[in-house]
């Protein structure tokens, strides 16, 4: 597909990278192949062409997410395969991750009732971190949650979870009151506080939750792409001016630092998402603010 306006630099700018965030079908239909050909002139009927279901449901990013889920399940099954009181190294690694979520997140934030939320939090953490690490894995090279749909899906699940917990515990009105009226606030101020609290707890929470995950990985991947793709382009740029090539080398070298940062971000966002889920549940379960 041609991208008008993408010839900012002089010369023949290669277009690699520009469609890095697009999902590609693993088994593209004939129409997809024709309409997404790397030529500027596509047939007129492509304007009304609709992708087939395989073009939409079997893409590289969806495959990646499925792969992530398989890896997560396999990981947990392997590390818990032969449980021993004195753990093996593999079991110890599994216990370390499980305990981090179970004790460090669920128990510390939710309190005595933490037990029933552990599977949700462990699933959330492991699914997010493995998909984030796909951004640094050489075969996939794309963090799955840089596709916003996945992030919205998980944010919606957390949203449903903590609201369901709150409504189940306090009843609908009790829960609304808990979420909108902070304890100790007198009448006239409530008029000011309640809408803000409502807005914060029911609208911005899920949006920020999904958006934070998506935007960090999206931006991180964009950053990696700029340094790697841009660096590659600059290194190979022939313009009688070696400064371009030197800049390209520096850019490629710096991309390693960016990758290291992205490793941190991958872990951090999975952890933050899990922690926030737990704290929202804790707030919904709490007896008062």
């Amino acid at each position, binding site marked *: *597909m041609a*991208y008008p*306006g993408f010839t900012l630099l002089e010369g023949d700018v290669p277009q690699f990278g*520009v*469609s890095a*965030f*697009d*999902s590609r079908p693993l088994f593209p239909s004939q129409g997809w192949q024709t309409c997404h050909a790397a030529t500027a002139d596509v047939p007129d009927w492509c304007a009304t062409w609709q992708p087939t279901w395989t073009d*939409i*449901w079997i*893409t590289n*990013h*969806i495959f990646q*997410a*499925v792969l*992530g*889920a398989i890896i*997560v*399940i396999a990981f*947990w*099954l392997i590390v*818990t395969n032969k*449980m*021993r*009181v004195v753990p093996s190294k593999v079991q110890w690694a599994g*216990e370390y991750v*499980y305990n981090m979520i*179970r004790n460090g997140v669920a128990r510390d934030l939710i309190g005595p009732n933490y037990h029933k939320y*552990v*599977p*949700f939090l*462990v*699933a*959330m953490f*492991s*699914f997010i971190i493995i998909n984030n690490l796909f951004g640094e894995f050489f075969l996939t090279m794309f963090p799955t949650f840089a*596709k*916003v*749909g*996945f*992030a*919205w*899906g*998980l944010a*919606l*699940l957390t949203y449903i979870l903590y609201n369901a917990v709150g409504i189940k515990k306090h009843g609908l009105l009790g829960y609304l009151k808990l979420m909108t009226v902070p304890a100790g606030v007198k009448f006239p101020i409530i008029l000011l506080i309640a809408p803000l609290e409502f807005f914060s707890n029911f609208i911005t929470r899920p949006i920020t939750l999904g*958006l934070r995950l*998506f935007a960090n990985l*999206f931006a991180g991947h*964009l950053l990696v792409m700029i340094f790697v793709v841009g660096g590659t382009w600059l290194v190979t740029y022939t313009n009688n001016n070696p400064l371009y090539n030197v800049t390209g080398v520096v850019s490629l070298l710096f991309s390693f630092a960016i990758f290291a940062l992205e490793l941190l971000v991958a872990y951090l966002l999975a952890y933050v998402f899990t922690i926030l889920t737990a704290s929202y549940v804790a707030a919904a379960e709490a007896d008062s603010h």
Partner: protein
Amino acid sequence: MYPLEGTGPLGPILPDHPSEFVVGIVLFFIIFFVIWKVIMPRFEKLYDERTDTIRGGIERAESAQHEAEVALSQYRARLANAEEEAAQIRDEAKKAGVAIQADMRAQAQDEASRIVSAARVQIDAERSEALESLRKDVGSMATTLAGRILGEALDEDTRVRRTVDSFITSLSKDAPQK
């Protein structure tokens, strides 16, 4: 279309297609279900076992210590008992020794006094016997002797007996009193 622009009014924060959204949720539920039904029970069972093992170990150690303490106190009690018993036995032996000694002494004294009295009785008997025989023999002998000296028979008994008796009486008076 510009890259990363997205298709809707919200730009790139709307998914290209609901497929991502649906797949993400479905995958999460699969993972959640496996962790909920398989993984978590395994971990919790392990933790329970580990807690049991540790607690069991502590309990075993505590019971062993308790047993040792009981054994020690029993041993000490027995030792004290034995010492007491020994002292008692010693005391008793001492007492018995003293009693036996006293007994023996008394017995010896009794025996001695018995022997002494028996001897005295015997001596008395013998003395009186001797006295009797003397009284009998001396009289006749003296009579015989006197008869010989005087050359006449002193056969008249009554006179003779009176003379002898008065003699013996005088002898008795001279003899030391018992």
